[in-house]
């Protein structure tokens, strides 16, 4: 069929004219579908859910299925709906601001995420820098080695650290055996363990954008600076670092935003002594079964993250422009 169609299209252009109006309409329709299908999917499964979260955050907890009231619907006609709308209130939000637990959880989460992001940058930068300067033949392998842990389960990688950080764990065994310490260090179930967990889990997200920024850099700039008598440290701060800034920004946002709402790491490594908002939301939902309050927690978390998320979008869009 394929060859026949091509020959038909190229040889008889007159006959083609008549057919192509309909064909073109078909093509246009297919072209629309390419946009419409993923668009509708995301509107239905990503955008509308947020609207529902917002609505439920204004509802009250109830012992019912679903466990909140009012359940908006047209069951009782328009007047019924209006009546239900009147029952919505911002009580859950006042509750969140009055209870120190929630305020603390938000503040702690942002601080923990910020510190972890800086630590990840400090650990990731030398690795990305070393990779960018590696012989070109070695680079694909190094890149593969950075990506590979990303393919293995997040949960497993966090779980692996429990055995290492426990009081009777491998790290303490090593340090006690070598005589560095006399008493086991208490790391598990502290914020230190959360920092280690976040740096470890999110390191590839930091290294990859840094590497792609550093790899593009023109090293003759550094040589020129050296020839002109600039010491290596100031050459780094004046040339290398500013040029890698897009990578630094992308990497930091990729770590910071998910880290604020992180659940698995604070839950498994942080224990009950640490407070983070992702864990608070989880407990509110699964332990207390309070859907309206957990929705309100989610809405405020989203508001906190909306600026970083928009910065991330803009950075992505700019990177796209440059690639073109």
């Amino acid at each position, binding site marked *: 069929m394929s060859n026949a169609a091509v020959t038909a299209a190229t040889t008889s252009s007159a006959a083609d004219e008549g057919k192509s109006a309909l064909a073109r309409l078909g093509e246009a329709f297919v072209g629309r579908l390419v946009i419409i299908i*993923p668009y509708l999917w*995301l509107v239905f499964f990503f955008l509308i859910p947020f609207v529902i979260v917002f609505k439920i955050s204004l509802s009250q907890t109830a012992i019912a299925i679903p466990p909140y009231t009012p359940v908006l619907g047209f069951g009782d006609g328009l007047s019924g709906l209006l009546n239900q709308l009147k029952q919505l209130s911002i009580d859950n939000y006042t509750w969140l601001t009055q209870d120190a637990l929630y305020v603390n959880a938000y503040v702690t989460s942002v601080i923990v995420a910020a510190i972890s992001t800086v630590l990840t940058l400090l650990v990731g930068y030398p690795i990305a820098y070393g990779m960018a300067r*590696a012989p070109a033949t070695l680079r694909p392998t190094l890149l593969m080695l950075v990506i590979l842990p990303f393919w293995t389960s997040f949960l497993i990688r966090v779980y692996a650290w429990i055995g290492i950080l426990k009081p009777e764990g*491998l790290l303490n065994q090593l340090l006690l055996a070598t005589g560095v310490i006399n008493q086991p260090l208490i790391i598990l179930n502290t914020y230190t363990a959360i920092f280690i967990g976040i740096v470890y889990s999110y390191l590839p997200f930091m290294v990859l954008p840094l590497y792609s920024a550093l790899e593009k850099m023109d090293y003759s700039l550094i040589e020129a600076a050296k020839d002109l008598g600039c010491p290596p440290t100031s050459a780094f701060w004046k040339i290398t670092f500013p040029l890698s800034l897009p990578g630094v920004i992308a990497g930091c946002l990729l770590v910071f935003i998910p880290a604020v709402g992180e659940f698995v790491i604070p839950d498994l490594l942080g224990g009950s002594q640490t407070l983070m908002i*992702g864990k608070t939301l*989880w407990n509110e939902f699964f332990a207390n079964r309070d859907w309206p309050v957990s929705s309100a927690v989610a809405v405020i*978390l989203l508001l906190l993250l909306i600026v970083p998320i928009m910065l991330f*979008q803009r950075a992505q869009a700019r990177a796209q422009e440059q690639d073109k």
Partner: protein
Amino acid sequence: MNPTWSRFNITSIVLGFAFLYLPIVLLVVFSFNESKLVTVWGGFSTKWYVSLFHNQGLMDATWVTARVAVISATVATVLGTLAALTLTRYTRFKGRMLFSGMVFAPLVMPEVITGLSLLLLFVAVGLDRGFLTVTLAHITLTMCFVAVVVQSRLMTFDRSLEEAAMDLGAPPVKTFFQITLPVIMPAIVSGWMLAFTLSLDDLVIASFTSGPGATTLPMKIYSQVRLGVTPEINAACTILIAVVAVGVIIASLANKRREVQRQRDEQAAQRG
């Protein structure tokens, strides 16, 4: 090329990779531990693997997870590829900003928010929580990752190939299936694999959207970890790591072979 690959560079790479890999290696090593204590070596044994296969709950969860991952990765690959085409080929249409926002936001959105919002959607439309809802949730999350992977391949795509095909009279749809699709296929395959492993891994979104009878493997592992660390979980994790590692190695070998084949073809073409 770069004579300045200094000792500092090499040290930081070696330390960095040790940091990345040591915990995983230790986890695998201790899955073969005879002792019940995860951190004390008691001799080599494979008994935890045996007991793993007799753990019916874990086996059921594995089966559920595998089905969810295959179905959601496949649907997500189709949707994600369409989204990538939309992002690169249709630069001007109403709501493009919103669309690119909806593609990129799920990549960084904290999972607790995505999970909660999807659950509330399923409750609102009256869908029973279970296999279907987890699959729908995973499609939504992973299609965005597929879109990013495929999009980056489409950016570097040489469009003159498509133009040549169309000049020769091939209609756009046919051009897509005969020219574009084969060229971006490696990206689509790695998108599928990424979607598959993301679905295999996910704990948070699955916990929110799953219901009775559809417990996934990460949910099962998580509930066991909460009760205490056992070598049996190490064994389960080792098998998961092995499955993913084999998949990645096969894919990269296939990629390499395709690359070698392409180079040979090009050389043959040049020789005429």
